[in-house]
C-alpha cells in the first residue's frame, strides 16, 4: 500500500527538481540578456549605440540618447518615445533582478522557496511589462519616424526576453501550485552550504568576467574586423589570418625578427639565472648582520618601482642632460654631451642589465632564506675536514640551493615567450625599434596602436597556447626528474 505512494512522491519531487532547474536556467538567461549588447531590446533605432546593453539603457539615460542629440532637438525622434524606452528598460531590469533574487531564494528551505517563486513570478511579470513598454515605443516610433533621418530596427531581444519571462512566470506558478503549503511557523532560512555559495557567487562572476570572458575575444582572429566595425557572417573569414601569418612575406619577416628578439632576451635571462643564487651565497659571507640587512634593503628597492620609473632613472643618468654626460663634460673627458639611450647598439645586453639592476637583489631573497635554513653542523664538519671557503660554498651551499634553482629555472623556461612589454615599451625609441621588439610589445603595437585586431589577437592566442603547453611540459619534466610538480 505504501510503496506506490512513495513512488508517486519521488516522481513528484523529481518533477519538482527539474522544474526548479529549468526555472533557474531561465532566470540566468534573463540575467545574461541584461548585459549582451547584441541582443539589447532597447535598441529600437540604429542611433542607439550598438555597444549598449539593456542594463545601461535602463539606468543611464544619457548613454541611451548619446548619439541622437540633433534628432531629439529637431523632434525627428520624440523625447517621449525615448523616455518610454528608458523607463520600460528600467522596469525590465528591475523585474529581472527581482527574478534573480527569486532564483537565489529557491536554494533555501520550503518557506524561502515559496517566497522565491513569488519573486520569480512577480519579477517575470514586471520584466514582461517593461518589454511591452519598449515594443509600444517601437510601434510609436515606426508611426512617425522619417526613414531618411534614422533607421528603425526590429530588436529580436524583445521577443527573447518576453519568451523567457513567460517561461519564468509559468514555472514559478506551476511550482507554487505543486508544492504543499509549508508548515505554519517554519521560518525562512538558507542552508549553510548554499549560503556560502551565494556569498561566493559575486566573486565567481568577477573571475568569469575578467579571466574567462577574454577568451571569447579570441573569435576576432576568425573575422575581418576593423575597429568600430562589427562581427557578422559577412566578415567571417575562417582561417584566413592563420594562412596570412605564414604566407605574407612582410608578416613572416616581422614574426621572425620578433621571435629572435624574444628568444634572445629570454635566453640571456636564463643564462644569467644563476646570478641571484651567487649573489645570495656571497652576501651570506658578509659577517655583520646589520650590514647584510642594509645591503638587502637597498638592493631590493629597485624591484618595487615601476618600469616607467626605471626609465626615469635611466633618463636622469644616461640622457643628454643626465649625470654621466654632466660629469664627463665637466671633467673635460667628453667634448659634447651624449644621449646614451639612443642608438641600437647592444640593446639585448642593455635590457638584460636593466633587468638585473631591477631584479637581482630581490631574486636573491629566496636563496638567502634557503641559506639560513641550512644546517650549520654541515659547515662545521666540513671545516674540521679542512674544506676551504669556496669548497664549502660549492659542496654544501650550492647543492642545498639547487632544488629551488631548478624550480625557478623551469618556470622561466616555461615563460620564455613572455618577457612582458613594459620594460621594452618604455625604453623603446625611434632609433632602437628593431632590436627592442619582443612578442608582447609587437602584439600591443599591432593591436592597440595600429588597430590590426584580428592578426594581433591571433599572434597573442598562439603565444598563450604555446605558453600553456610549455608550462605543462616543464611540469612534466619536473615530475619526472624531481618527483614533484611545480604548478
Amino acid at each position: 500500500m505504501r510503496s506506490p505512494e512513495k513512488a508517486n512522491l519521488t516522481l513528484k519531487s523529481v518533477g519538482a527538481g527539474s522544474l526548479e532547474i529549468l526555472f533557474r536556467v531561465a532566470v540566468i538567461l534573463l540575467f545574461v540578456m541584461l548585459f549582451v549588447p547584441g541582443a539589447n531590446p532597447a535598441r529600437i533605432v540604429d542611433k542607439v549605440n550598438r555597444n549598449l546593453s539593456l542594463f545601461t539603457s535602463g539606468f543611464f539615460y544619457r548613454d541611451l540618447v548619446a548619439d541622437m542629440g540633433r534628432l531629439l532637438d529637431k523632434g525627428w525622434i520624440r523625447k517621449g518615445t525615448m523616455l518610454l524606452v528608458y523607463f520600460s528598460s528600467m522596469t525590465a531590469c528591475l523585474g529581472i533582478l527581482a527574478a534573480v533574487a527569486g532564483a537565489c531564494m529557491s536554494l533555501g528551505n520550503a518557506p524561502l522557496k515559496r517566497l522565491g517563486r513569488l519573486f520569480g513570478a512577480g519579477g517575470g511579470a514586471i520584466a514582461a511589462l517593461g518589454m511591452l513598454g519598449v515594443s509600444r515605443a517601437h510601434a510609436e516610433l515606426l508611426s512617425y519616424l522619417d526613414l531618411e533621418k534614422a533607421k528603425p530596427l526590429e530588436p529580436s531581444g524583445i521577443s527573447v526576453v518576453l519568451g523567457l519571462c513567460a517561461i519564468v512566470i509559468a514555472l514559478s506558478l506551476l511550482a507554487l501550485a505543486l508544492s504543499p503549503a509549508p508548515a505554519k511557523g517554519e521560518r525562512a532560512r538558507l542552508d549553510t552550504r548554499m549560503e556560502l555559495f551565494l556569498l561566493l557567487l559575486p566573486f565567481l562572476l568577477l573571475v568569469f568576467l575578467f579571466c574567462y570572458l577574454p577568451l571569447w575575444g579570441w573569435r576576432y582572429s576568425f573575422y575581418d574586423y576593423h575597429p568600430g566595425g562589427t562581427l557578422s557572417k559577412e566578415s567571417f573569414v575562417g582561417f584566413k589570418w592563420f594562412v596570412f601569418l605564414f604566407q605574407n612575406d612582410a608578416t613572416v619577416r616581422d614574426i621572425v625578427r620578433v621571435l629572435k628578439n624574444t628568444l634572445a632576451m629570454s635566453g640571456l635571462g636564463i643564462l644569467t639565472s644563476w646570478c641571484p643564487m651567487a649573489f645570495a651565497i656571497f652576501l651570506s659571507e658578509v659577517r655583520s648582520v646589520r650590514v647584510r640587512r642594509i645591503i638587502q634593503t637597498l638592493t631590493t628597492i629597485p624591484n618595487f618601482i615601476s618600469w616607467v620609473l626605471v626609465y626615469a632613472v635611466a633618463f636622469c643618468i644616461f640622457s643628454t642632460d643626465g649625470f654621466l654626460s654632466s660629469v664627463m663634460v665637466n671633467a673635460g673627458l667628453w667634448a659634447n654631451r651624449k644621449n646614451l639611450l639612443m642608438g641600437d647598439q647592444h640593446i639585448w645586453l642593455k635590457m638584460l642589465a636593466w633587468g638585473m639592476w631591477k631584479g637581482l637583489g630581490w631574486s636573491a631573497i629566496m636563496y638567502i632564506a634557503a641559506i639560513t635554513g641550512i644546517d650549520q653542523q654541515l659547515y662545521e664538519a666540513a671545516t674540521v675536514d679542512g674544506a676551504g671557503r669556496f669548497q664549502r660554498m660549492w659542496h654544501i651551499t650550492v647543492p642545498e640551493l639547487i632544488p629551488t634553482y631548478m624550480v625557478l629555472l623551469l618556470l622561466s623556461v616555461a615563460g620564455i615567450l613572455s618577457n612582458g612589454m613594459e620594460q621594452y615599451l618604455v625604453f623603446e625609441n625611434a632609433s632602437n625599434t628593431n632590436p627592442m621588439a619582443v612578442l608582447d610589445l609587437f602584439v600591443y603595437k599591432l593591436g592597440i596602436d595600429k588597430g590590426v585586431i584580428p592578426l594581433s589577437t591571433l599572434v597573442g592566442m598562439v603565444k598563450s597556447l604555446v605558453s600553456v603547453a610549455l608550462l605543462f611540459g616543464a611540469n612534466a619534466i619536473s615530475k619526472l626528474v624531481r618527483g614533484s610538480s611545480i604548478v
Partner: protein
Amino acid sequence: MRHRQSIGDRFFHVLNHSFFILFTLVCIFPFYYLFINTISSNDLVRKGLVNFWPIGLHLDNYIKLTGVGDLTNAFLVSLSRTALGTILTVAASGFIGYIMTKRELWRRKVWYRFMVVTMYFNAGIIPWFTNMQMLGLTNNYLAYILPGIVNVFNIIMVKTYIESIPKELEESAEIDGASVLLIFRRIIWPLSKPILATIAVWSAVLNWNSFVDSLVLMSAKPQLYTLQHRLWIYLNTTNNLQALMSTNTTTVSAAILEGALNAKVVKYTIAMVTAIPILIVYPFMQRYFEQGIMLGAVKG
C-alpha cells in the same frame, strides 16, 4: 672561538664587501641624484652642475608642480585607486580565502579549481582590451578597481594561512550559533592579519605602479591617467619647457612658467614624486614583502 684571519681571507672580504657596496651604490645613487636635483638651485641643475651634493636648497619645485592641473589630478587618481584597490582586494581575498576553507560550501572543489585554473592561462592583451571595451570599462575609472578585486594568488595564500589556524576557535563560535559573516569578522579577520598585511603591501605597490591599464584603456580620458602614465608622457616630450607645459596641461598658470623651472627639473620632480611613496614605505614594510614571496614559494 674565531679563526685568525689569513691573508686570503682578508682579501676575500675586502673584495666581497667592495662588490656589495658598489652594487648597493648603483642601486641607490640614481634616486639620490634625482632627489638632489629637485631641491637644488634650478639654474645650476640646468647647467649640469649638481651631481654629487645639493647646492642652493629649496622646495619650490614641489610646491609649484602642485599648480599643474593634470599632475595633481594624476596623483589623486593613483592615490585613490591604490587606496580603494588595496582595501577591496584585502577584504575580498580574506573573505573568499575563508569561504574556500569551509567544507560545507556547495561544490567547493569545483569553484576552487575554477579560480586556480585562471593562474595558468592568459587570453592576451588584445582580448583583454576588447573584453574591457565590451564591458564598458574603457575610459572608466572602475577599470582600475573591478578587475583587481579577486586575485587568485592572494586567495590561495589566505586559504593556506587560515587552514593553519586551529579549528577549535571557529567551531566553538559555530556552536554558539554565530553566523558565517560574524565568525569571519570577529575571529578569522583578526587572526589572519599578518597575511592580510602582506597582501595589502603587495597590492598597494602593484596599484601604484600600474601603467599599462591606464595606457591602453583610458586613451579618450586624459583626466583618468595614472601618475606613472603622466610621468612617461612627460619623459617623452620635448625639452622645451613652454612646449612641455602647453602640450601636457590645460591649467598651467603663468606664475609657474615665470619661475625658474626648466624641463629637466620638471621631469625629475615628477619622477621623484612617483618614487617617494615607495622609497619611504618600502624599508618599513620589507618584512611583509618578504613574507609574501616565501608563502608563495611554499605554495609553488
